[in-house]
């Protein structure tokens, strides 16, 4: 009796190499390859990697249930200030907000890369729904549109005060811009991308808009290659928090892939070592990221953290970074080693040593004797940990909202946040029958009139493929 193979194809793309794994329905890695990238023909390495890996398993295109793509290109674009769109940075807050203009604390080169076109308009809401300034009228919108055209801006980021509670002004302005500039003009609305805390939410929204060209590029290349090879199954993009999302959702939220390689690398490294709880050191050419895995999940953080030199509040892997030039065959300098040990101290938190897994393309460069470890594992597939992590990952959805407890009960607010997170997950390609609540966090916002509760919900699910549940 033949058993129908159903593989998940994991693909990790970075500047130097394409790494791929093929995982079977028992979560066993059946094949793995690494193909160097030819910068003149980036799609060639993807095609070569997929061909090789299918050959190794004697598998055909129809055996691939779905593919997952972990790509470093958004992170690299932000880091190198390359390929970023010129963004109309629109804030609806005046007369509030003018003491801290948009992009105030941004590195100068990043500010220049996104164009620095700032529009501080009247608008915004008080918490109770009264407006701070009048919503921009038709003339103000016309002036804005005219400037966007004149400066040839390529995307717009709209941030309004208290939009996570009152999103209407952002939505109205977006509709007006779409009408004037056409539905293809990329827009990022801040209430999609963060909770209370204007500067961090605005920063994340602007970065999201700036990535609008870069975001879909890797997905397009990969989809073309897969189609050419006869693989028609769905492709999912890896998210920062260790889950997956559909390409359509990823195209709207490229910022949610800006640290996807780290998030998935952590999980993959733990899995390859057979550990549910461990510290992980991900070793790449640009440095070492240290993070924790607990209960198979990579540690994540949504409170403000730096990304590309800018403070944002999007979900990110909770890691400590040691920036350093690492090359194969060269041992780490004593100075870098010291910083790695300090990073490990911080990652561990408590003084007791714990198992450490070294993974990533340059895992071999970290010596076995490190302070604070009960044992250092370098799993055989260490360079492929990120592709492995992505192949294992569930589809994820989240919602992070603020509720007035004068209108909601606490249970009602929790239920609403979960409902919205589930909706996001289904849009992202989740099988609704397998949705689970992975995290539910609450925080009261202190000193506020009335009682306000911030609820953050994250749900995960198996991927929905061709209307069938994935049995793994």
């Amino acid at each position, binding site marked *: 009796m033949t058993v129908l193979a159903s593989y998940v194809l994991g693909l990790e793309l970075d500047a130097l190499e394409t790494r791929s794994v093929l995982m079977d329905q028992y979560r066993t890695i059946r094949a793995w390859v690494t193909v160097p990238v030819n910068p003149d023909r980036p799609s060639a390495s993807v095609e070569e990697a997929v061909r090789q890996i299918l050959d190794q398993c004697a598998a055909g295109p129809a055996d691939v249930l779905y593919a997952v793509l972990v790509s470093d290109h958004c992170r690299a674009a932000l880091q190198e200030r390359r390929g970023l769109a010129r963004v109309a940075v629109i804030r609806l807050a005046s007369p*509030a907000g003018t003491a801290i203009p948009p992009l105030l604390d941004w590195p100068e080169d990043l500010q220049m890369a996104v164009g620095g076109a700032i529009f501080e308009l009247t608008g*915004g809401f008080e*918490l109770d729904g*009264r407006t701070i300034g009048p919503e921009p009228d038709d003339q103000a919108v016309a002036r804005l549109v005219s400037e966007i055209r004149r400066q040839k801006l390529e995307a717009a980021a709209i941030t309004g005060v208290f939009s996570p509670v009152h999103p209407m002004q952002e939505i109205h302005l977006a509709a007006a811009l779409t009408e004037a500039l056409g539905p293809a003009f990329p827009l990022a609305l801040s209430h999609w991308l963060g909770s209370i805390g204007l500067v961090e939410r605005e920063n994340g929204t602007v970065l999201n808009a700036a990535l609008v060209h870069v975001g879909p590029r890797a997905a397009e290349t990969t989809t073309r290659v897969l189609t050419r090879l006869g693989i028609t199954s769905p492709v999912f993009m890896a998210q920062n928090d260790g889950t997956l999302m559909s390409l359509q959702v990823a195209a709207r939220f490229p910022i949610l892939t800006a640290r996807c390689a780290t998030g998935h690398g952590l999980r993959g490294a733990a899995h390859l070592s057979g550990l549910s709880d461990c510290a992980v050191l991900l070793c790449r050419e640009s440095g070492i990221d240290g993070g924790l895995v607990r209960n198979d999940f990579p540690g994540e953080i949504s409170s403000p953290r730096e990304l590309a030199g800018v403070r944002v509040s999007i979900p990110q892997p909770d890691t400590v970074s040691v920036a350093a030039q690492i090359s194969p065959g060269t041992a780490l300098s004593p100075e870098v080693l010291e910083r790695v040990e300090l990073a490990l101290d*911080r990652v561990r938190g*408590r003084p007791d040593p714990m198992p450490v897994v070294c993974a990533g393309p340059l895992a071999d460069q970290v010596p076995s004797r490190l302070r604070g470890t009960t044992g250092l594992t370098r799993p055989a597939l260490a360079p492929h940990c990120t592709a492995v992590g992505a192949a294992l990952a569930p589809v994820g959805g989240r919602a992070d909202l603020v509720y007035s407890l004068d209108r909601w009960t606490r*249970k009602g607010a929790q239920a609403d946040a979960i409902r919205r997170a589930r909706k996001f997950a289904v849009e992202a390609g989740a099988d609704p029958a397998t949705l689970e609540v992975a995290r539910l966090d609450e925080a009261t916002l202190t000193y*506020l009139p009335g*009682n306000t509760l911030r609820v953050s919900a994250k749900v995960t699910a198996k991927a929905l493929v061709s209307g069938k549940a994935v049995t793994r």
Partner: protein
Amino acid sequence: MVWLDEQAVRDLERGAAILGSGGGGDTYLGALVALQAVRKHGPVRLLAPYELADQALVISVAFMGSPAVFDEKLPGEKTLLAALEALQEHLGRQAEALVPVEVGGRNCLSAVATAAAAGLPLVDADGFGRAFPDLQMVSFGIYGVQGCPFVLVNEPGDVIIIRAADNHTLEHLARGAAQGLGGVAHLAGYPMLGAQLKETAVLGTVSLALRIGQHMRRAAPRLDDILSAINEVTSNSTYGPMRLLCRGQVVELYRTAAETESGAIGAPRYAFGTAQIRCRHGRHLQVQFQNEFLQAESEGKVVVSVPDLITMLDTETLQPLHADTLACGQHVAVLGIPVPEIMQTPQALKCVGPRSFGYDIDYQPLDRPGRAGEGGDGSGVVRVGP
């Protein structure tokens, strides 16, 4: 002559956070306001109290209200000056200098911003020596200065002028006014003469915050080096040696706001609660907080009591922690810093002692010999190290 420029703003951002004692708001946004103001208007002269003329008019400035609203609404440029201008108009007199209400936390930075925008010097002093929640707790008020006339403004430009019978009433009225103004308001109040400030303010606190920030910046990014940096500054000031009370992990967190299980939470407005910390040597430390960390107990004995400062550092990030964002599982170092003597007098303790916060104990100063803390040998000298 000390000028507060962009680097000073960055250093104050760190130092003011240490003096926040778990409250005072996140200094990052305050630093951004100050940076923008200093870039636009030039550096601020930090005036030593002795340089202040006895007859000069000094006005104290701050934001009050919800930190969450501040984080979201962000102040308007005009707001920084509107309260000051309205108060000056009401008094019929211009201020010669400004002084922060509060050196701990965000308000230290916003005072720098207001001074920059106004083109006035900032006096090296404040009303708390740390962060505190209420207006009647300022040292100026404790020693007889009237808070009123007192002005509050918001972004749309509404102005409320308060004349209250006493400073307790002022706090009550101002709190309601700030809510009515949208949740956060900029204030100008406690108008006083230079001579009065010299008698009643906590002196030298802005430069202390600056020095703490400078020393922390220069220290290696290791906990022990950071602790030494802080101790070096406080030991050579009106505060006194810093005590490392405990290094450990937050194992239990009890917040009164989160306790109610029923649908509608009748929560108090503030972050109130208790943190239980398991120390490395096995002992436990309980830290009580009401926005700020107020009291630390170990083995049934009070180790630090308000008004002395309790600061918690996250040992992973080396950043100071706020009471409202403290989480179970965090690895912390808990520090005690004695408050300057002007806040330890019987008169002061009536407003800022333990009983003002509902703790029925007498104040026990941190630097009294015999106080036991991890790393302290009772001589008043703190050994900082493993």
